[in-house]
């Protein structure tokens, strides 16, 4: 294997909110959003690596950070052997000649005030390649090559359709004859029929100029059509990487499986196909879940080995536990519901105004003790009814009620601890990781994990299915 054209190790990109001068004065510590949190991958010359994931998972940020359009906060990037991160001035500009990008939105990627010819010629002017005439000549060839006609040189972007504008964007990217091109959702904004034209053009260009692509997309069918290898991303981390056929025909990570299952197929038998949809929403990157970040939605989260529980029920219990751990419960409205029926508009309006956010100050502690004792059962019942779709089978229902009882006096920590002893999963304690230089690494405790992860699991006194039954037979 020749060494890869692009080598990325533990790439990180964190954004900081609320750190203006006034915030610091107010003592607000800046909130860090870990958009890209330590991803590693290689791309070999002539190969197309697909980067797939839902919106907000950090795939576009990865693409832009790779090209230094955004400054990485950690990790290393090597392009053609030399390190990209500390490139400055002239060296950075020459790196840019070899690595280019095509953007998503045809209406925002072209400067409306400049002619099409001017836009494609811009890179050549910046690096003053050849003479003014030779540049114009080159631009005319490029326009023809991407399927437009040379005499559209002096037209403005508003005179072209979405598909034609993407072709102009591609022509601009190829102006400096790069080796590596990042395609950031090149066809997401296009109609299906036009998308096919662009995808064909991209693969023709790859063969003709032996380009290396990093294709970023949320559309799995586009990824499957073009890519040789695929990396699946979730909330800033890679969960699975591998050759396209293996990822699509035999996905290992529960998230990849759910992703593939959710895509509706355009065939007549699609109606009868059983689809097990993922529950819940993507958590906020400001407070990613501990351990495996997919555990809050994972349909096969691993219960402690000594506990016998149905996955359905375990998922419900884990959802309740997440909310208690994050204190994401408005106890005041529960008390109101218990005390006098539906919450009165005035009080809730005032509470929202004074900033009584769900998790911060807890008005219930203000009520006198005997009042709460007497209403404790009603409080527990109301909480149970709100949080659980259908009641749990014993002994779990009892255990949860005990935990809710602790919430009666607002003891968040006690309630969380009570459930943690019994139901804590390895998934929330130990973060799975990708096996280095493995053909098809999977960051999930159901699959073979690197040595370091196995040790942490053992230290935490947990066990994983793969640990017991050896590698790669996937979840039952």
């Amino acid at each position, binding site marked *: 294997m020749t060494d890869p054209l692009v080598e990325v190790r533990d790439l990180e990109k964190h954004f900081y909110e609320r750190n203006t001068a006034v915030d610091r004065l107010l003592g607000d510590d800046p909130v860090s959003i870990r958009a890209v949190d330590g991803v590693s991958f290689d791309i070999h010359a002539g190969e197309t690596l697909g980067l797939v994931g839902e919106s907000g998972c950090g795939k576009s940020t990865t693409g832009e950070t790779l090209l230094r359009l955004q400054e990485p906060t950690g990790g290393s990037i090597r392009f053609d052997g030399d390190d990209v991160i500390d490139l400055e001035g002239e060296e950075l500009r020459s790196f*840019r000649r070899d690595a280019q*990008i095509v953007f998503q939105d045809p209406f925002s*990627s072209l*400067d409306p*005030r400049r002619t099409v010819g001017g836009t494609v010629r*811009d890179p050549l002017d910046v690096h003053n390649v050849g003479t003014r005439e030779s540049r114009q000549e080159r631009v005319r060839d490029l326009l023809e090559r991407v399927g437009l006609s040379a005499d559209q040189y002096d037209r403005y972007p508003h005179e072209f359709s979405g598909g034609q504008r993407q072709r102009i964007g591609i022509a601009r990217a190829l102006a*400096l004859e790069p080796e590596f091109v990042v395609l950031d959702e090149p066809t997401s904004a296009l109609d299906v029929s036009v998308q096919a034209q662009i995808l064909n053009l991209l693969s023709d260009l790859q063969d003709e100029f032996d380009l290396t692509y990093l294709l970023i997309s949320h559309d799995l069918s586009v990824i499957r059509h073009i890519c040789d290898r695929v990396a699946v991303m979730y909330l800033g981390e890679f969960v699975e990487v591998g050759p396209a056929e293996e990822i699509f025909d035999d996905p290992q990570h529960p998230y990849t499986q759910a992703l593939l299952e959710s895509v509706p197929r355009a065939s007549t038998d699609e109606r009868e196909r059983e689809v097990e949809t993922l529950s819940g929403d993507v958590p906020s990157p400001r407070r990613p879940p501990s351990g495996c970040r997919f555990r809050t939605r994972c349909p096969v989260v691993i219960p402690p080995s000594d506990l016998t529980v149905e996955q359905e029920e375990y998922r419900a219990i884990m959802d309740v536990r997440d909310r208690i751990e994050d204190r994401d419960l408005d106890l005041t409205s529960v008390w109101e519901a218990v005390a006098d029926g539906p919450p009165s508009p005035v009080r809730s309006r005032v509470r929202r105004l004074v900033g009584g956010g769900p998790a911060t100050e807890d008005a219930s502690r203000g009520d006198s003790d005997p009042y709460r004792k007497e209403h404790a059962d009603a409080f527990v019942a109301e909480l149970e009814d709100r949080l659980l779709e259908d009641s749990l089978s014993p002994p779990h229902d009892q255990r949860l009620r005990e935990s809710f009882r602790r919430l009666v006096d607002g003891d968040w920590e006690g309630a969380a601890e009570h459930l943690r002893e019994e139901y804590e999963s390895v998934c929330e304690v130990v973060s799975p990781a990708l096996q280095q230089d493995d053909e098809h690494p999977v960051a999930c405790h159901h699959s073979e994990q690197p040595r370091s992860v196995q040790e942490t699991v053992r230290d935490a006194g947990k066990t994983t299915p793969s640990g017991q039954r050896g590698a790669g037979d996937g979840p039952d």
Partner: protein
Amino acid sequence: MVSDRTWRNLAVELRRSHLAKLGLVLVAFILFVAIFAPVLAPHDPEQTDPGEANLPPLGFSETKTETTSEMVDGEVQIVEEEVQIDATSEHPLGTDYVGRDVLSRVLFGARTSIIVGIVGTALAALFGVTVGLISGYYGGRLDDGLMRAADIMLAFPSLVLAIALVGLWGRQTKKYDDPFQTWGLTPDMPEHVVVPITVILVVALVNWVWFARVARGEALSVRNEEYIKAARATGKRDLELRFAHVKGIPIPYPGGIITEHVLPNSLTPILVLATIQVAAVILLESALSFLGFSGANLSWGLDISQGRDYLSSAWWISTVPGIAIVLAVVGINLVGDWLRDALDPGIDQGEGGV
């Protein structure tokens, strides 16, 4: 630079809206008057003629009872006589209390207003847009700092700050000889055009904040467009010195992303604000000269102020220049609306301040 679509939008909007047509006509008229005042004016605006004082405009000749006191054989007697004062075609809009021709003064007043309006706004735009673009494009602490400075400037109403500054710097003016005079076309007209320098500087200093805010807003939104990222991806610098060789002479000009991509795409709202600002500046200039802070000798505000004491006897001295201001400012505002509706209906309505 200006694409044919922009011209087409302007033409389409012009055909559609009558107000736009009215606006263009008014502005064209005011500009024409301001440039050719010496040729158009029937009299020298500064030439006084006590005999012809307080003549009413055409169509308003009136009879007035005048009371004069006379010494008639040793006692003071009040004699009332009916006096017939007729407007003359010599002075179509009448004369002021020292007999100067009101029409000529209004024509020359246009010149001062337009000069202050355009030059003042241009200076404000130059400074404001530069600050706004830099602050919006780079953001962060620089942006915070600049915007706090703008807030401080905004804390003073434009007129208040203007008066204070004029109070400090005095009412300096500069004389430029009138081109028509140097070509000998208008011998009996005043040789010099008196330009109130302090007022122009003050107006620019007071209004640059509106340009900074609009430019910053535009730069903030344009900065995230993908064509800016694409430009950076090709290695283009934000700002770099470029030399354009005009007939062999290298003329330096600022190149790079900010001037070649951010500025052109922020021009429309800046252009619309500029038109509104010219109108606002004309109002401000007339207010300053009304309060006696302008130093320009031929200004609409000054005439209105001088006519205040003769309201009951010669109402037209104050009224006519006022109407001229309203016509000019309405015209310019209509042109501003036309530009906004045609080019970028989405611009918010943050009117410039007076």
